[in-house]
């Protein structure tokens, strides 16, 4: 569960990124967070992942109060999240298998667990035949699937995808979105940050629109309203 309650955030250079943002995402939901560049989307992601702290208001992520969370607790909070980035952020020197296994190793999983779980997740994202390839041998869509597998492998409560289709063609973008939808159907909360209107309108999901640091729309249909 992710809850923002009247959250304000101003950066050191004076930029007012968020001006009283409130919303709540329940467990099991699939939500699009949309808005133009500079609207505050990235700030919301950073607040959720703990890269920055709110100035005012409350950010609660899976039971952790992000305004007062101790530094030592941050890794444990992050283990409840799976994050997918636009630029994939894979380790070039490692194979697909190793990239995914790495995320499990980080949280102290045993070799036995890793050997059991990684092939399962790679099969889920359709990469079970390409486990031993390195990222530079894969297409953009496949690399994003690896990133999704890595985000999923520790069984997070929430998957956050930050512009996951930004570097992909429309067909691959649709595939990735369908994969995220499938993951959501398996019970994981999914938050997709995007500015791709066409893509959002292909799915009948909740859309939170943000503009100039404020929530301007929060609707349960394929309504992409911030620029209308």
């Amino acid at each position, binding site marked *: 569960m992710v809850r923002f309650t009247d959250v304000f955030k101003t950066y050191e250079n004076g930029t007012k990124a968020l001006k009283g943002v409130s919303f709540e995402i329940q467990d099991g939901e699939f939500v699009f967070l949309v808005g133009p560049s500079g609207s505050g989307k990235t700030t919301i992601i950073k607040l959720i*992942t703990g*890269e920055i702290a709110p100035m005012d208001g409350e950010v609660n992520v899976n039971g952790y109060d992000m305004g007062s969370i101790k530094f*030592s607790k941050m*890794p*444990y*909070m*992050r*283990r409840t*999240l799976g*994050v997918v980035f636009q630029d994939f*952020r894979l*380790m070039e*020197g490692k194979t697909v298998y190793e990239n995914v296994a*790495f*995320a499990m*190793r*980080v*949280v*102290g999983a*045993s*070799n036995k667990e890793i050997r059991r779980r990684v092939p399962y997740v790679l099969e889920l994202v359709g990469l079970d035949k390409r486990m031993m390839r390195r990222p530079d041998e894969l297409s953009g869509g496949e690399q994003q699937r690896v990133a999704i597998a*890595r985000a999923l492998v*520790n069984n997070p409560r929430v998957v956050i995808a930050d512009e996951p289709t930004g570097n992909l063609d429309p067909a691959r973008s649709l595939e990735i979105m369908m994969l995220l939808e499938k993951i959501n159907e398996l019970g994981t909360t999914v938050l997709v940050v995007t500015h791709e209107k066409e893509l959002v309108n292909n799915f009948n999901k909740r859309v939170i629109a943000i503009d100039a640091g404020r929530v301007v729309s929060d609707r349960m249909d394929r309504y992409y309203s911030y620029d209308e």
Partner: protein
Amino acid sequence: MTSNRIGYYLKEGMVSVFNHGFMSFASVCIIVACLIIMGSFSLLGLNVDTIIYRMESENEILAYVDESLSDADARALESRIEQVPNVASAQFVSREEAMDSFVKQYENTSLFDGVDATVFRHRYIIKLDDISLMAKTQTDLLSVRGIAKINAHLEISEGFVRIRNIVTTVSVSLVVILLVISLFIMSNTIKLTTFERREEIAIMKMVGATSGFIRWPFVVEGIVLAAFGSLSAYILQYGIYRLVTERLIGNTGFSFITFIPFSQIAVPMLIVFVAVGFVVGVIGSLIAIRNYLKV
């Protein structure tokens, strides 16, 4: 910490050493250079200190016994003199022995012809534990009943103490400065390796790695580099020390100098090299990675 995780840290640390071959080589070279410079100054200081100590121990105090004391009473003073703080040894020299010594010293002259031994006084040749306390020991000895006069070369002892203090201060200062420089260079070298891997560290943080999990492979890397560096420096230092001492001993101009044999300092030096390398490697790694763990 599970064996699984320890295995991971060791593997990652070792792999990183070889994956970043040039940087690893640079780090080892830096450790070797710093340790050899530090080691050379330490050995120089140690040898100078030993030579000065030997010369100091040859610097004696003469305590003259009151003439009114009988021979037996004069000899009995020995135990009381040895109880005086800072006295290492007291050797009784009778007036006859003193005269014999002078006669031998001036045997080609008629200076002592017809001179009776009674003109000499019984005396003690006293060696001290710490030459820097000579003035105080002199006062303490004078308070021993039966000691009439003390002959001590305070100016010589002060000179030795001054030289030893200067050598110690210079050596310790240089070692400390070089240690700080080594730490700085080592941490910057590992920082470059860390900079190459900042994306990997960011991913680790994002998937929930604890700071310890991220830090340990770098610490292992630092230890491995330090071990290579320390052992290489130790072997080189041995070669340099042997070469220099053999050359100096072979040179007649320095024949009065005796050096500490390497075998005497081999084990403590190995321990110091490994310890300094370890400290530089581990602290250097920790300093290098500190900034990347703040997120």
